[in-house]
């Protein structure tokens, strides 16, 4: 595996360098002057010009890029134009919130995705399968923000048992932290789990037709063992790939879910950065998101090879 990782290293570096250039240029192609946003709605052209100079935005782009990338290699991710604080500090303040949300959502994604997939893909009565497939289809059709709003109405207004606004860190207070996380994590995970479930279901139905399953049935292997050992294990490959891809979607979905549930995570920072043309914040978040996607892809390939001995890393 180490040889595999070393072989992938050059392409990873290339992707990250290309991403850094794109992440640097893209926000600057968006019309608007961050100095105008800092100066405020009534500012005069003179004030805006003075702020632009103060923020170093009047320097040539190439200088700004190398100044930023040079800082990144020394651990300085830059300074937020809007908040005038180090970007690393802003991200550090919010990382815990988003990681907690993404992790719980990922756990729910695996549990509901594979669970619903097994239920729908197992040999069951018609009504049970219809019920499971109906649930699945409902989740497939509902985007996370809609599920979030429905959960707020249900558990925040109709039956007020869970908090729908704000956050408490799980590390500070596990009990309250978990309660604050529950609804946003479910809103994020449920719609995505439907896609995973559909893949598991389809794959299980296809594997069920294989000769080795008939052989196991003929040998009198108990049905649960056939389902778990023979069918499910061989059906998980596509689901693992989908979960790997969906992990990136979890971070993207967190932008909306954080807004609805008033959580101050990285998603909110990204939105605020984009709205005020806060270049340094946007640059780091884009490069960070690509880095996470690359790592998720690597982990997916490693997991696949562990599940299926026929898959070789390389």
């Amino acid at each position: 595996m180490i040889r595999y990782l070393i072989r992938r290293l050059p392409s990873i570096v290339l992707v990250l360098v290309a991403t850094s250039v794109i992440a640097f240029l893209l926000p600057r192609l968006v019309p608007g002057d961050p100095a105008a946003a800092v100066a405020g709605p009534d500012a005069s052209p003179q004030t805006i010009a003075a702020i632009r100079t103060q923020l170093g935005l009047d320097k040539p782009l190439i200088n700004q890029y190398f100044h930023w990338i040079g800082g990144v290699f020394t651990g300085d991710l830059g300074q937020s134009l809007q908040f005038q604080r180090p970007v690393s500090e802003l991200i550090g303040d919010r990382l815990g919130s988003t990681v907690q949300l993404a992790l719980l959502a990922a756990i729910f994604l695996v549990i509901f995705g594979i669970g619903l997939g097994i239920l729908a893909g197992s040999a069951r009565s018609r009504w049970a399968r219809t019920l499971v497939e109906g649930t699945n289809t409902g989740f497939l059709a509902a985007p996370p923000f809609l599920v979030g709003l429905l959960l707020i109405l249900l558990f925040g207004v109709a039956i007020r048992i869970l908090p729908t606004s704000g956050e408490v860190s799980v590390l500070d207070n596990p009990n309250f932290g978990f309660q604050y996380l529950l609804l946003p994590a479910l809103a994020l995970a449920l719609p995505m789990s439907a896609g995973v479930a559909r893949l598991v279901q389809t794959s299980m139905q296809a594997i069920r037709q294989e000769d080795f399953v008939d052989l196991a049935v003929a040998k009198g292997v108990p049905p649960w063992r056939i389902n778990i050992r023979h069918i499910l294990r061989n059906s998980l490959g596509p689901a693992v790939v989908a979960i790997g891809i969906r992990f990136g979607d979890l971070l993207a979905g967190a932008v909306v879910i954080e807004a609805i549930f008033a959580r101050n995570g990285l998603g909110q920072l990204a939105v605020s950065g984009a709205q005020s043309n806060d270049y340094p914040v946007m640059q780091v978040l884009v490069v960070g998101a690509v880095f996470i996607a690359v790592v998720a892809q690597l982990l997916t390939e490693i997991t696949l090879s562990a599940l299926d001995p026929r898959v070789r890393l390389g």
Partner: protein
Amino acid sequence: MGKQIGRGRRGRTAVHGVMALAMASVLTTGCELAVNQQGGGSKASCQPGGTLVAAAAQPPIPARVLAQGAANYFWVRAVFEPLLTVDGNDVTNVKPLLASSYKIAPDDRSVTLQLRDNVTFHSGRPFTSADVLFTIKQALTPTSPSDVKSILAGWQVEATGEHEVTIRSQTPLSPVLGSTLELTPIVDSQTYAGVANGSSLIGTGPYKVASYQPGAQMVLARNENYWQKGQPTLDRIENVAIPDSTAQLSALRSGRAQLSFGLTTQDALTIAQRNGQFEVLKTGQTVYPLVLETRSGVFTNKTVRQAIGYAIDRKRINTQVLGNLGTTTGLYWAEGTEDYPKGLENRYRYDPGKARQMIKDAGATGAAVPITIINNPVLHAEYEIIANSLTAVGLKPALIALAAPDYQQRLASGTGGNYLSFRGQNGTAPFMVQTNADLRLQGAHRQFTTPQYTNLVNQVIQAGGGAQEAGAVKNLTEYMLDEAFMQVLVTAPGVAVRSTSLQNVPIALGGLRPNESCLSR
């Protein structure tokens, strides 16, 4: 085989572990519900102590302490206090705050302010006249966002004693003194370097900054050494940024927040009308003008500009967008001020037939009218009604909706074209013509400028109160209405929503002054 069995056992163990963890979480969760920790309250008698949670659509921006703005509305006057304070809903109501008294000279060109000698900064350092000089110097730096720079630039400020300051000006002071000083809160010279990034927010106010998470929230704690004995009432104020309107409503309904700022007027009215636990709080008057591009395009023709005045259904904007809380007089100035030009209201009454004929006579039928707005639900809704009105009289409106950095850059550089804006009605006419970006002479966002306009504005600035000022404002207003380079559509209050459990919430021009705000339990 044995290896496979071992892996199977490990797998089952892992599954059981996850199930146990989940069950433990549920059981732990069952012990105490987080929703029970959130507030609620009722309209009962006020109690000292408690925590106010105020939700704002924008996060606090400490770099803009010396400017007026929605981002700092809930916290800045709790931490930083000005020499004089002005009521946000009545700009003629000026009271001393850090100044104990002030005396304006008979020629209205100088004022002497006596400063309170029992005021200390949160750091413990006594407040003196040197701090006033330092604050005004900071407000005048090129990068300062101060809204009142143009007025401060014409002042000579001198410390005439440890607790006495004298201000001299080339232009009359009384019409502008209150608003200018209200919007220049006193900062601490020793820690001011930390204000821009929020690392050191030291003022003289009733609350100290206990913690600040940039872009997210600011927590204020009671200042035990506050100079006004018995104040403040609350122990703690949490200013949380909740940009999403749905989330703000959720925060109010769930009892998490007792105050919310940033909802549209219609949303605010809806929650207040449907739920007896909430009331609308007016946060100062705002003017909504349509400023026209007079250098090129169809509005180089004055007749077409005037036709726009008759074409737009202002009352519909007031009713459908601003909850019928506003007025549609068509004047920029604050009603109730001495210089308000009574008799000039409603020069342009809604008359689409007349507008259509004027546009036809000017040969402008079918002309394109691009209108620039900042992405904002109120301005979007306002634009829809304007577009409807303009289409009805034979023009072709087009929307250019921009993000804040683009909108503000275009307006400041004079390339905004026809634009919709909203500005605080934060002073008398002489104050507004010097500070308001739509009206002022230097660095204006408005494109229209003529020697006559400059002359009339200067007359307003130089008039100095009384009949002379009223006459100058009347002359300027008549000229503005005749030239019609901007159409004031509605003047309406900004709105916040407060829980009825929150009482005593006075609003100053610079923001909420929560000295005596309290919660009932």
